C-alpha cells in the first residue's frame, strides 16, 4: 500500500526554476525553438543594496534568481528552491579590516523565509532579539529573519566582534520592509507546553512522508517527561481540510474508537504513529506519543 503519489517539491522547484530560466531570453543553451523572438530582459541592474552606517560597499552586487542560485551555492540550492526561493542579492561590505558577505534571500513569503531560517539555524544558539529571529555563530556567521527575507552575513576577513555583528544585523533589518513577528501560521499551534524556539516549517516531506507538505510544527514537553510534536499541514490554494484528509493515501487508516472516527493514523518508520484530523486552517497532527489513544487524545484536546 502506498500513499497517493504527489510530485516531489524538489521537482516542482526544479520546474519553476526552469520556467524562470526559460523566461530570461533566447535560449542558446536550451531547446532552440522555444524562445525565438525578443524575450530578453534589458541589462540587469542590481536593486538598491543596504549599506549600513560605517560600512562601505566592496565589489559588485550579485542578483540571482531561481535558475542560477545553484551555480552560486551548488547543491545547497536544492533546499532553498524547495522553500520557494525567489531572489538573492549578495554583496560585500567592509569596515576597517573587517570584510563580510551579506546575502539577502527573498523567499517570497514570511513562512518560507522562516522555514529556511529554521533549517539553517543552529539549534543551540540564543536569539539575538533582532528582526523576527536572529542568531550568531561567532566569529564566522550571523543569521537574520525578517518578514520574507532571510539574511546571511559571513565574515570574510578581519575581526568582527559579536556585538558589532549584531549591530550590523540590526542595521540590515532596519533597511528591510515588513514586520518583526513570526508568521501568523504558528498561532494555530497550541501555546501551552510548547518548547520555546522549537518551531519550524517544512515545505516538503515532513516526517519523511511525501504526503505531508507545508507543515508548521513545534515540539512539546509534558511534566512527566513526555515529548511530542504537533503540526498543522496548510492547504494549498483553496483546498478544504477535509479534502486534505481524503488525499492522504492508502497508508493511512481511520483511528480507533469513537475518538478516532474523524482522524487518520499511520506508522512512520522508526517514529511510531502519527495521527491527523481536519481542523481550522488545515490538517492538525500529532506524533511522538506512545499509544494511539494518547495521540488521539492530544489531537482532540490540543493537549
Amino acid at each position, binding site marked *: 500500500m502506498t500513499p497517493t503519489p504527489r510530485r516531489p517539491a524538489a521537482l516542482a522547484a*526544479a520546474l519553476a526554476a526552469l520556467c524562470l530560466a526559460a523566461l530570461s531570453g533566447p535560449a542558446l543553451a536550451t*531547446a532552440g525553438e522555444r524562445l525565438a523572438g525578443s524575450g530578453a530582459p534589458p541589462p540587469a541592474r542590481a536593486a538598491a543594496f543596504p549599506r549600513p552606517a560605517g560600512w562601505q560597499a566592496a565589489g559588485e552586487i550579485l542578483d540571482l534568481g531561481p535558475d542560477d542560485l545553484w551555480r552560486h551555492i551548488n547543491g545547497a540550492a536544492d533546499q532553498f528552491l524547495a522553500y520557494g526561493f525567489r531572489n538573492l542579492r549578495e554583496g560585500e561590505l567592509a569596515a576597517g579590516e573587517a570584510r563580510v558577505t551579506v546575502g539577502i534571500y527573498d523567499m517570497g513569503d514570511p513562512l518560507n523565509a522562516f522555514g529556511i531560517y529554521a533549517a539553517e539555524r543552529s539549534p543551540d544558539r540564543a536569539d539575538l532579539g533582532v528582526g523576527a529571529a536572529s542568531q550568531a555563530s561567532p566569529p564566522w556567521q550571523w543569521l537574520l529573519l525578517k518578514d520574507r527575507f532571510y539574511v546571511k552575513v559571513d565574515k570574510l576577513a578581519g575581526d568582527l566582534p559579536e556585538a558589532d555583528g549584531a549591530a550590523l544585523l540590526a542595521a540590515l533589518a532596519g533597511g528591510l520592509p515588513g514586520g518583526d513577528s513570526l508568521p501568523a501560521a504558528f498561532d494555530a499551534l497550541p501555546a501551552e507546553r510548547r518548547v520555546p524556539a522549537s518551531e519550524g516549517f517544512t515545505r516538503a516531506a515532513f516526517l*519523511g*512522508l511525501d504526503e505531508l507538505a507545508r507543515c508548521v510544527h513545534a515540539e512539546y514537553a509534558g511534566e512527566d517527561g513526555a515529548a511530542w510534536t504537533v503540526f498543522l499541514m496548510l492547504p494549498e490554494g483553496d483546498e478544504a481540510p477535509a479534502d486534505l484528509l481524503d488525499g492522504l493515501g492508502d497508508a493511512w487508516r481511520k483511528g480507533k474508537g469513537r475518538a478516532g472516527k474523524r482522524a487518520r493514523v499511520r506508522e512512520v518508520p522508526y517514529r511510531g504513529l502519527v495521527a491527523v484530523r481536519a481542523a481550522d486552517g488545515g490538517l492538525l497532527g500529532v506524533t511522538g506519543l506512545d499509544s494511539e489513544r494518547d495521540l488521539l487524545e492530544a489531537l482532540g484536546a490540543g493537549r
Partner: protein
Amino acid sequence: MRRDDPSGRDAALSRRAFLKAGGALAAGGMMLPLAAGTAGAARRVERPARPTILSHRVLGRTGFRASDIGLGGSYFAESNVVRYAVERGINYIDTAPNYGNGDSESKIGQAMRHLDRSRLFITTKILLQPDESADSIRERFAGSLQRMRIDHADALLMHDVRDVDRVGHPGFHAAVAQLKAEGRLRFAGMSSHGPNDDSEDSMADVLLAAAEDGRYDLFLLRFSFLEAEEGGRVLAACGEKNIGTTAMKTLPGYMDVPDWDPENPYEGYTSYIERVGRQGVSRDEAIQRIVGWIAQQRAVQARMRPFVEKHGIETDEQLRDHCVQWALSQPGMHSVCLTLPSFEAVDRGVSFSGTQLGETGATFLRDYAAAFGAAHCRIGCAACMGACPHRTPVSRIMRYGYYFATQHREKHAMRKYAALDRDASRCLACDAPCAGACPHGVAIQPAMVRAHELLSLA
C-alpha cells in the same frame, strides 16, 4: 575565507562559489513537453513495496564495495530517512557542510546513532580558497566530523573545482596527509561540475588533470546522457588509474508550462515580474513577455507531439528512470548519487539498483537527444574549433550567449563579446563550412547568428 563553525554548524559561504550548469536544475537543461493522455509505451521501473539494493561495485582503489545507488545529501527533511536508506542497502553517502548550512551533515549525525559506521562509506566535501592553509582545512573538516558524529570520514572531496591549477592545492594535500596519518580520513577526492566563466577549465580538463596527479582516489562528476562524451573520457581515465567514480545530476532539465492566470498567477511568473521590475520593466510588459513565451512553448509542444506520442511520455518519472538507468549502464560508473529526501523517494531510488537501460530506454534517450540535444551547445566543449576558416571562437561566443540568455549577465556577456578580436558577424554571409562539425549535432551557423544578434543587439 570560508569557514565552518567548529562548535557545530557550517559558517561561511564563499562569495564566488559559482558553478557550471548541467543538472536537473540547470538552466542549460533540456525541455520535455509533457503530454497528458498519451499511450503508455515507455516502460517504467518496477517498484516493489520495499526494494533493496541489488548491486554493488568496487569503488576503484578504495576497494569499498559501494551500492550502485548512493545517497546524495543536498537536503533531508528528516534524519530517519538516512537511516531508512541504509536499511534499504545504500552504503554510500555523499554530503557537504554547505548543504543546509550544516543541516545535512547534522541529520546524518543523528542517524549515525542507529547505524553501523563500519559498513558505510561517508564522503564530505570542502569549498576551498586558493591560498587556504592546511590548518584551516583541518579545522573545517573537524566541524564536519563533529556534525556527523563520526571519528573519521572515508573521503574528503575538494568541492566544485573549476580550475586545473586547483588540482595541486598545497593546503588541501597537506591537510589530507595529516588527516590520514591521524586516522581521521581514508581517501581524497574531487567534485566538478565544469566551468562558469571563460577563464575556467572544463570538467573533463579538471578531472583528467586530477587523475593524472595521482593523489585523488574518488571523483564525483556531472554525468547525464546529453554529455556522455565528456563524462566518458573521465570514466576512461578513472578506469586506467583505478579511481572510484560517482555520478550527480544525471537528469537533464525539463519543464512544464503553466498558463497565465491573472487571478491566481503561478508563483514562478510572479517572481519573474518582480525580478524584471527591479530592472525597470513594467508589469504590463513583463506579463506580455510571459504570455508570448507561453504561446511559443505551446507551439513547440505541438511540433513535438509525434515524439511524445511515439514514446508514450506521460510523467516526469519516465525521463528520470531512463536517465538514471543510462548512468548505471555506463562502463566504469560505480555509484549514482540521488537526492532522496523522503522514505518514498528512497524506495523509488533504490528500485533502480541492479537495473540496466533496456532497448526501450536506449531508443527513448536517443530520440530525445536527437529531438532536443541538437539545440544544446555543451558549455566547455570545443570539438568544433578548427572548423571555421575565419577562426571564429565558436565555443566562447556560445558561452557568452549562455551568460546573456540564461545567467542574466547581459552587460558582462556583451562586454566580453565586444572585446573579441573575431566575432560572429562574418557568420551572417558565410557558406558555413562548419556544418556538421559539432559532434552533438548543433547547427553552428544559425546559433552563431542568433548569438551575434543577441550580444550585439544587432
